[in-house]
């Protein structure tokens, strides 16, 4: 097969994996710290994409649009955290899963109301292409990969080098102890939740130019994000990064080999991994409940 095709396939897979990572990282952090499964991250993803679309269409500037998308997602996630999640942190996981699904559904309905049902095309900020190993590759996709790697570095730095990060890591191990030390864990929760919302919004805003912006985009990506989180192990950031790129590659390269299987292969892989290792690749026994 054509070598160029493979190179662009790998880049395509990496950029898709980056989007998955940005989404799944927030989900994974929320699970690790608060023990919630926050399906509404998918809402912030759609919202980020729509705000980015709106700003880029009205002003013609795509990069500020992407920034606005991430910020708007953060604001909405703050509101949802205050009004909904703040009351239900103590409940079991399935409870949070269902409630957050309600938030997601309401949000998708609101988006349909505001922007209509028709998918909208969004302008791509950088049209240029560069040659990687002789194959033409869009610069924008490389930038998306760069952003994901930078975000991974940033989260690792926050978690390992700052006092807030230390508190978060400690709270993942034992919330009660951290609270006993005088840390206001609810502020940690709020911060983490909003951080996750911003990342999801960023993922949507970055993904917008690559696909059409459409009200169902959040629901369409649900299975993939969950697959990433589960393969990587709930609560493990490193696992999330590895599995996001893995899933991106399976989808992208799989479609080069045999198109019908591409969307299905990762799910079969996830089933096998779960049955063999129910906590995922990097999930620790500690996270298991």
């Amino acid at each position, binding site marked *: 097969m054509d070598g160029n095709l493979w190179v662009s396939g790998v880049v395509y897979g990496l950029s898709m994996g980056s989007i998955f990572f940005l989404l799944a990282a927030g989900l994974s952090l929320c699970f690790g710290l608060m023990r919630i*499964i926050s399906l509404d991250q998918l809402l912030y993803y759609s919202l980020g994409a729509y705000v980015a679309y709106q700003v880029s269409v009205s002003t013609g500037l795509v990069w500020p649009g992407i920034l606005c998308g991430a910020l708007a997602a953060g604001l909405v996630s703050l509101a949802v955290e205050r009004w*909904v999640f703040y*009351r*239900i942190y103590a409940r079991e*996981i*399935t*409870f949070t*899963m*269902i*409630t957050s*699904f*309600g*938030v*997601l*559904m*309401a*949000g*998708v*309905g*609101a988006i*349909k*109301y505001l922007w209509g049902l028709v998918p909208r095309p969004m302008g791509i900020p950088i049209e240029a292409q560069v040659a990687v190993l002789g194959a033409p590759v869009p610069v924008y996709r490389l930038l998306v990969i760069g952003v994901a790697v930078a975000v991974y570095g940033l989260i690792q730095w926050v978690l390992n080098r700052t006092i807030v990060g230390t508190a978060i890591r400690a709270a993942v191990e034992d919330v009660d102890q951290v609270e006993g030390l005088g840390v206001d864990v609810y502020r940690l929760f709020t911060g983490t939740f909003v951080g996750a919302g911003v990342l999801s919004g960023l993922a949507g805003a970055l993904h917008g130019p690559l696909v059409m912006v459409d009200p*169902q985009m959040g*629901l*369409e990506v*649900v*299975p993939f994000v*969950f*697959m990433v989180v*589960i393969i990587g192990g709930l609560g493990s950031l490193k696992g999330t990064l590895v599995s996001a790129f893995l899933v991106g590659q399976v989808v992208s390269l799989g479609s080069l080999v045999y*198109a*019908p*299987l591409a*969307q*299905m292969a990762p*799910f*079969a892989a*996830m*089933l096998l991994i*779960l*049955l063999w290792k*129910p906590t995922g690749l990097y999930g620790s026994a500690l996270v298991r*409940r």
Partner: protein
Amino acid sequence: MNGRVRWWAGVLVPFGLLAAGRWFLPLPFLVEVLVFSVYTMACNFLLGRVGFISFGQPAYLAAGAYGTAFYLFYAGRDPLLGIAAGVATGLAVSALVGLVFVRLRSDYFALVNLALAVIVYHLLQKVLAPWTRGDNGLWFLDRMTATPWVDLTRPEGFVWFAWGVAVAVWALYKYLDDTVFGACCLATKTNEDKVKFLGYHDFAVRWAAFVLANTTAALAGSLYGVYFGFVSPDMASAARAADPVVVTILGGTGTLYGPLVGSLAYVGMKDLVSGVVGNWEFFVGVLLVVIMLAGERGIWGTLEPWLRRRWAWRRPAPALQE
């Protein structure tokens, strides 16, 4: 004797009301409510009795629908046998995957089922396309022959058949609540170690419950298939995966009338709100959040104590005499 009358009254009164609705509710609405309530009863049993939350019900719905469709499209013409074929397919699929799935705990269980729905969707849409005709779906409305008594091929007859099936399924689940099996299901939900200590095989109990519920979902799928005379991979779409769970909670998890009330509310909202505003999802979503925050009792769970009080206030005598 008295107890049996009351037992059946509990089944027949709500469904009698629904049957009476035949004369003032639009027909497609009634059929949708009935079939959806069968679909939701399965989910209600899983969620309320066994403690399984499944985001993969569309997979079993599609298994039933396609079992029916394959029979009616390629082999026979009798819709009743078609429904039997659909139920058999659902039974086979859920019995097989159940062996693997019921080992997992609640949140993983939900997501593995979601993965199954996605796999089934792509199987139907792409991999098995030579037989399923992909997105075009299978049309067999004119292939079905009329059945005696109630004609399943016509909506006027089908609504009564769907009504009968819903009553039967509902009576089955009501009956199960009183049996040892039902008690075991409830016990695995609360404390599976104690179930083991009592000498019951908790894996077998959960597996049987899983198979039973998902076969019911497949039954709902084959009902849809026969009603529309058409199936498409959209039945297994992951975008609709949470519907039965949402409706179960809307109605009231684990309550007997919950699925019925929930389906009525859900389908009603879908029809009414989408006619007026156009985005019913917003209202369903908000309602779901409100119900969860208000103590997750659902519509029926909230209404029931209120109705009971009124009932008791009107006629306190019989309860005292017993």
